[in-house]
């Protein structure tokens, strides 16, 4: 495993770190991995999670690029007034071009947490070089099963009852605001606030991705308790959708939003590495079956 710093993008003002597999461990089946910023955190990820993930993936044979989007981490802000989502897609493409030129990469796995997941999803919708996306605390949709568990839990929570009493009878108590689908990764003034697309649009996007051969892993955590709270919720939300066996979900019932505890982070990294190996090996086999170039 070897790491190298690069400047990329049209103005060469985006900072990235390439983690290369040890010589001889990379195979044609291995796609190249791009790790996308989690909110405003720079390319090391929450609690340095991306550094470990990149090294684990490189040990499994994947070249990895961790990059800072413009205006985040060490990368300069853009001066062309392009919207963040549009700029992120352009910069993902810049990163792909760099890795294509430097490593001959033609297939990519995009991964990210929170806003990184959202940007990976948007890139996969339109970019033909994407072979798979791993979305850590990505989009989620509440179901009747979600609400049942949500209110059951609150009924048994003594703190919530106390809060209710204060709200109803206490002087100056504030009414609890409605649970929002959006959230912030941190509490700074520059927080990234999320909004999820309508479920019908996401279903349609996922079916289109599956039909193009893109694999998707949704990794949910208990830290998303406002909109995800049990392992079967994803399957319930998308019941009847035709995902061709390419879209999977995994729930981490003990973790917080950013996988702060080491044990939870280890578990997540294992799951993503195993998914990456399985999905690229299966993708490569499928390509051979139909006579396409892997």
């Amino acid at each position, binding site marked *: 495993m070897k790491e190298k*710093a690069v*400047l990329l993008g049209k103005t060469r003002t985006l900072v990235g770190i390439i983690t290369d597999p040890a010589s001889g461990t990379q195979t044609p089946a291995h796609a190249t991995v791009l790790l996308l910023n989690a909110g405003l955190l720079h390319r090391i990820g929450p609690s340095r999670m991306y550094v470990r993930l990149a090294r684990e993936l490189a040990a499994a044979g994947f070249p990895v690029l961790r990059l800072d989007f413009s205006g985040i981490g060490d990368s300069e802000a853009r001066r062309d007034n392009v919207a963040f989502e549009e700029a992120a897609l352009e910069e993902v493409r810049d990163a792909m071009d760099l890795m294509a030129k430097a490593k001959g990469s033609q297939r990519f796995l995009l991964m990210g947490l929170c806003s990184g997941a959202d940007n990976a999803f948007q890139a996969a919708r339109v970019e033909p070089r994407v072979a798979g996306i791993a979305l850590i605390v990505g989009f989620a949709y509440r179901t009747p099963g979600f609400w049942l568990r949500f209110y059951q839990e609150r009924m048994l929570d003594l703190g919530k009852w106390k809060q209710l009493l204060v709200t109803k009878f206490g002087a100056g108590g504030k009414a609890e605001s409605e649970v929002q689908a959006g959230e912030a990764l941190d509490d*700074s003034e520059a927080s990234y606030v999320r909004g999820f697309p309508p479920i019908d649009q996401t279903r349609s996007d996922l079916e289109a991705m599956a039909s193009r051969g893109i694999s998707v892993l949704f990794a949910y955590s208990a830290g998303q308790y406002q909109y995800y709270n049990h392992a079967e919720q994803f399957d319930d939300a998308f019941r009847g959708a035709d995902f061709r066996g390419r879209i999977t979900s995994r729930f981490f019932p003990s973790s917080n939003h950013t996988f702060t*505890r080491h044990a939870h982070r280890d578990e997540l990294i294992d799951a993503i590495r195993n998914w990456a190996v399985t999905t690229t090996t299966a993708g490569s086999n499928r390509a051979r079956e139909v006579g396409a170039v892997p």
Partner: protein
Amino acid sequence: MNPFFFGSSKKPLFGIYHPPQSRAAKERAVLICQPLGHEYVRAHRAVRQLALLLSKAGAHALRFDYYGTGDSGGEGDEGGLAQWTQDIGTAIDELKDVSGASRVSIVGVRAGALLAVLAVSRRRDVDAVLLWDPVIDGAGYAALMDEMNRQWLGSEYPRVPNGDLETSRVGALGFHFTPAMRRELEQANLLSLEDFSGKRLSMIVSTEDPEHRALRARLDELRVAHDYACVPGGGDWARRERITATILPHQVSGLLQGIVGALA
């Protein structure tokens, strides 16, 4: 801006070198020693801004990650005070090499200030050290990290008894803080400083603290030239509510200008 790896191939360190963007009356090379753990993450963008300002003022600036932190080689549990002070020495040599300067100045932020003073106290090629909200007592800092960790994990994992949190692999706020790291840090205290000859020491802080007065008294005893400024606004380092809050450059602009004015 030039991001690169330096040091030995077994223990590579990541740094970003900012060459001078203007001609200064006196050529300066400034090494920035970053904080540790979650404070490193919080300060990252502000430290970048400091390096840019120094570079605009005509200085060579280098910021870097200690071994086992940030983008540098090594895992999070492999570092420690001895390793990190050695890394500062490696970074000083690198900065002298890339800039051509024979002497350098150091900015140390939070725990980076403690490490910087310990690393350079006997070096003759360092002429000034500026401490930004310095950690002066390693034991007090370790206790603060414990308390912040307890409060943070308690709020993130309300159902897990505190005693059960991270019993197998000790961590603070998701970063490693091993028993060995703790032992080393608890023995470090700038009030026990023995030698700091040939260097000027400046402190710039966002809040007044009795420890700052104690350090200034110690510097007087050692006959070390020093100065001090308090510029309110900044880190809120001990507030749990700010534990994940990025320090935005505009929030510390006065403090950053003060540092640049003192060094460039």
